[in-house]
């Protein structure tokens, strides 16, 4: 009960930051407050939001996934090639592309779960591997990797550029995915297994949970999340390129950890991640709106990250904690003496 209360406190803090941002930026530039401006801006960083939702699963189990960005590029180029060179119907490529994402995730997930290698390095290798494969595939099938594939059918391009009920489609996709991920993580037995594996892998193993399969499945999920982001991005830009998503790696991790998920695993939530990715996105967009140049945006995002988490951990541990030895010199000497 306490844990739930703590999580909700963090999510409400995020909502508070979000509202504060909108108000402050709106004060400086009233154009910011227009609802279609706000929602429309989400389109530009929707990839981070979508992928971060599923990377949350990975991080809760105590793993790390830095290859998701490269999977975006790979799925985008596979989609383009299947459509252009393979002549497939663009909508029919979607399930294939999802499968590709799942396979990529399964590859790394298998290595991480069954051979016990560090997740960060395997996914680092995966990052190089998948982005490299994207370039190789596109060079092999089309004459040049640098031209990209474009000219997709208009209905497909409208998928990410259109609006339904006045709300941009990618935002709707995002909401649907949030609901799906939330139900999966917080309401199913599978979700509970994920938490348990993250809290104490050995205990989960002894309790009869197939931890290896669970861990591998989280990577499959994040791979599929990356594939979905690849589809949306390809539709949004109307173009298919091997290097999509290359810059997404660290922003995704930033969104997940800002959302309250602990990097060592066992704690976290989908709602937090969703809110955090919105907070970061709106912060960047808002700062641009008030005149910041993009190349300086890293500074406020970095400060926000540190400040937000510092406040949280400081309040969680009940004020700045000084280890006992630091309290008084006499005590420190006593302890040092006894430790020898």
């Amino acid at each position: 009960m306490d844990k739930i209360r703590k999580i909700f406190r963090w999510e409400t803090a995020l909502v508070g930051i979000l509202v504060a941002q909108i108000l402050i930026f709106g004060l400086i530039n009233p154009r910011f407050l227009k609802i279609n401006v706000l929602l429309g801006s989400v389109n530009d960083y929707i990839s981070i939001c979508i992928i971060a939702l599923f990377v949350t699963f990975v991080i809760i189990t105590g793993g790390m996934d830095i290859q998701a960005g490269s999977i975006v590029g790979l799925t985008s180029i596979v989609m383009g090639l299947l459509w252009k060179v393979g002549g497939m119907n663009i909508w029919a490529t979607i399930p294939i592309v999802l499968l590709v994402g799942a396979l990529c995730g399964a590859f790394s997930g298998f290595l991480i779960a069954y051979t016990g290698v560090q997740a960060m390095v395997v996914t680092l290798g995966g990052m190089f591997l998948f982005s490299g494969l994207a370039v190789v595939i596109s060079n092999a099938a089309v004459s040049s990797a640098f031209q990209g594939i474009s000219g997709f059918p208009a209905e497909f391009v409208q998928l990410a550029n259109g609006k339904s009920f006045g709300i941009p489609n990618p935002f709707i996709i995002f909401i649907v995915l949030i609901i799906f991920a939330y139900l999966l993580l917080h309401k199913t037995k599978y979700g509970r297994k994920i938490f348990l594996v993250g809290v104490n892998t050995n205990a989960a193993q002894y309790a009869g949970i197939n931890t290896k399969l669970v861990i591998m499945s989280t990577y499959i999920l994040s791979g599929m999340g990356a594939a979905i982001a690849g589809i949306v991005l390809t539709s949004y830009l109307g173009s298919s390129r091997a290097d999509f998503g290359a810059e997404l790696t660290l922003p995704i991790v930033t969104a997940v950890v800002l959302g309250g998920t602990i990097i060592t695993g066992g704690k976290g939530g989908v709602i937090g991640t969703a809110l955090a990715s919105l907070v970061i996105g709106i912060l960047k967009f808002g700062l641009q709106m008030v005149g910041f140049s993009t190349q300086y945006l890293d500074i406020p995002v970095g400060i926000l990250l540190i400040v937000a988490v510092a406040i949280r951990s400081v309040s969680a541990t009940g004020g700045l904690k000084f280890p006992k030895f630091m309290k008084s010199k006499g005590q420190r000497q006593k302890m040092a003496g006894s430790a020898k």
Partner: protein
Amino acid sequence: MKQIVRKVFKTPGLSSAFFMVALFIVAGIINPAFLSLDNLQLCINGSVMYMLLAIGIAFVLMTGEIDVSIGSVLGLSAAFMATCVRDGVSLWIAIPCTLAIGAVAGLLNGYGVAKLHVSSIIMTLGTMGILRGTVYIYTQGKWVENLPDYFKRYTQASVFGFVNVFLLVTIIITLGIHFYMSKTKKGRYLAAIGDNINGANLIGIPVARTQIFAFVLSGIFASLAGIIFVSKVGFVPPTAGSGYEMKAIAACVIGGISLSGGVGTVIGAFFGAIIMSSIGRILVFLKFPSEWDNTITGILLIVIVVADSLFRRHSAEKARKERLSARTLNEEREA
């Protein structure tokens, strides 16, 4: 052969040396030009920058934390150092100031992690962004270029005609640190904290101070790597250092340092850095179309790390079985 392999994997840090040699041999088989003495020299001399980065981050990894800001620290230090060199500031002033940048960054990281209890990945992600933005403000987005030759020639300077000065100094530093971390009491604090932070707390190790110390060292080494960058490359774009932290972490992991802390030596990081830095050069020699660069890098990385893990597991399993059979044998004898 098996005995040698097993012994190599038991000695701390040498498994990565094994992989390095294996990698070089494979490259040499495909293109014998790679194994020429001067090319190998180039490879190893060229890895000095990564070695310093890897050694620096090894401190932090040993304590069970992570530091992804070293790339930005390198960038800022390199930009500052290059500006000093270009404007004729004396090296006696420029170098300590540059190292101070790294130390301050490390202090910032260390304070956040140790005192404010911010998770290290978040803290260093934040400082990474802040420092990168600072580089832009400092350089106004422009390259620092046209540095005087005398500074660039330091990378070529050698002792006894063939041992590069920077490499020699790095080797001495590595050995010194290895000795410090494995034999001295204070040095062992790092591994102790990484292994069991609460236990370390209880037996009286000054955890917070040691953590801050680790981050400060990581920052100073990143600055040192930045100085080497200026000397080796000769011009500094504002993006210098982006992505280097991942390579340094990979170098450490290849070298046997566990990301959960407490395990590994800087010697492993040393050889791991040579591997990571040489991959780019090897790819040129392999005469593969360059579009395969990333794919091969990824495959190499995964193969090395998985092989290392499997070897370790295998030998740990074997050792466990031996202990088990020895115990049952003893029990039988006693019965």
